[in-house]
């Protein structure tokens, strides 16, 4: 990233510049506050959480052990996390296996109508998922796939594939042409070419793309709740299960929400710069 932005330097040491910095910090805390409050409330007792907002209190980890403990008849945390984990990891793996060669065929050695093909992939994201959920539910029922991890793996792969192809294509087009040509003269075959020349260069881009797929799949609720309400349920369903119509639940809900969001928040923090480069740069440069 370049640091020679002209605008920012203006008024750096003036009072106006100082105020803008303070404003930036203030906005930062404003955006982060609900997440902070959620995590904080997870360490409260129900009595503390269900009352006027309290910043200082005696912290307890009681809610965390309660939400992770098993209650018969209810979806357990362990089950939900393992279902989510496998659905997310395997679908992301499939996305990458399908998207890497496809992105190659759309950028480095493009097929003749690569633009139309790319449009087709992106256009599938325009189809509202509600238009497909009914047939999907019927097909899944016919194939005995309702309430299985497999149905989510297949659909999360389809859901993330267009975005992954879009991002990978932009990373691939940044690979210097000379490098690929050199590999060709060496007689490297397609997979050899991809693995020995291209992959090392686009590795950071691959990681960012995979992370974005992980984020979207981990957070997905609609398909999971429609197709897997009984078994194979994932973390978002487990979170909503902590909302109770009887009695206080805010501290428990906060603890569950914190556990549910933590993996993806940390992953996103690590990948923030690259994610955006993949989304924005390749498309615009």
């Amino acid at each position, binding site marked *: *990233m*370049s640091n020679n*932005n*002209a*605008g920012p330097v203006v008024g750096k040491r003036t009072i106006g*510049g100082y105020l803008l910095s303070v404003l*930036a*910090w203030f*906005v930062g805390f404003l*955006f*982060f506050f*609900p*997440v902070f409050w959620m995590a904080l409330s997870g360490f409260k007792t129900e009595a503390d*959480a269900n009352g*006027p907002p309290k910043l200082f209190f005696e912290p307890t980890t009681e809610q965390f052990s309660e939400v992770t403990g098993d209650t018969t008849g209810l979806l357990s945390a362990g089950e939900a996390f393992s279902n989510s984990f496998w659905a997310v990891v395997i679908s992301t793996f499939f996305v990458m296996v399908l*998207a890497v*060669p*496809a992105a*190659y*065929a*759309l950028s480095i050695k493009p*097929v003749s109508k690569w*633009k139309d093909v790319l449009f087709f992939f992106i*256009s599938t994201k*325009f*189809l*509202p*998922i*509600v238009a*497909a*959920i*009914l*047939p999907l539910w019927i*097909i899944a029922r016919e194939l005995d796939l309702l309430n299985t991890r497999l149905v989510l793996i*297949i659909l999360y792969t*389809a859901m993330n*594939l267009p975005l992954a192809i879009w991002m990978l294509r932009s990373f691939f087009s940044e690979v210097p042409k000379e490098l690929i040509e050199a590999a060709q003269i060496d007689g490297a075959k*397609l997979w050899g070419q991809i693995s020995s020349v291209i992959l090392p260069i686009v590795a950071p881009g691959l990681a960012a793309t995979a992370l974005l797929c992980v984020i979207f799949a981990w*957070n997905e*609720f*609609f398909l999971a709740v*429609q197709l897997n309400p009984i078994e194979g349920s994932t973390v*978002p369903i487990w979170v*909503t299960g902590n*909302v109770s119509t009887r009695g206080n639940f*805010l501290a428990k809900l*906060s603890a569950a*929400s914190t556990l*549910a969001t933590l993996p*993806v*928040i940390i992953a996103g*923090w690590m990948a*923030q710069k690259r*994610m955006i*480069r993949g*989304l924005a*740069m*390749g*498309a*615009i440069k």
Partner: protein
Amino acid sequence: MAAVTSNSTREEQVKALQKKEARRRRLPLLPALLFTIVVTQVPFLMSLYYSFTKWTVTPPSPREWIGIENYTDAFTNMFFRQAAMTSVIMTLTSVVLSVILGTGVALLLDRKFFGQGFVRTLIITPFLVMPVVAGLVWKNQMFSAAFGVLNWVLNQVGVESIEFASKFPRWSIVGVLVWQWTPFMMLIILAGLQGQSSSVIEAAKVDGASPRATFFQITLPHLRPYIELGVLLGSIYLIQVFDHIVVMTGGGPGSTNVPLFVNQRSIGGGWRFGSASAFSIVVVVATIILATFGLRVLSGLLEGEEAA
């Protein structure tokens, strides 16, 4: 052309080679293409077929072909029109607001100051939060009249508590969507700002252009493709919003959008598969109109790349 002078067998050979090359280029694309076609287009075609039938699952009834009746019903159905309106308003307001706020925040972050990276990390966090969690946290811990932080703040300045999620269901949801998508827009626009050449801005300053004129006449036109990309990606995801609504209002007054509406009519309890399919096909057609516009934007983006 040289080929004109060469004999025909040679020409055929070249053609065959070209064909082979084209096939070789297509090969890596096929698995992804076939998978996408099967998983996304087959259900769509089934929906299309169902939409011309009368088919109720509970109580079970045979599926019968009724032509366009479901469609005429869809267009006269007041609730569907309301849901369509809600979809349009919610998508539009949340996209526009998050782009405007995202631009503002990006401008704030595009300056060197102490803790710049840390503040950016704080701001992107909402985008990473699971939608159902975002909805639940805002509803119960920010908007709630009894224990909500927002109401506590309002009380301090002498305003009485408001149960936001039930009093203003639609705008409460839009608020949460804007909270989640502003960071996304900010990141894209920040990428644009950081790609802006500093010499142009310097030149404008030397020429005595006011910061406001510099922003509107130089920075904003430069940001245009980035803003378009943000609008495109934002619309794709925001038009499908479902999770936030389910956990915040369950579709309370003015907050049932089309995804929720179709769901209520089909596997969410209505079980009228025929008419629900017609509703979803109408949505698809409407989205295709939007998509045509979106793809044109996309096309512009790709052309820019070819020119470079």
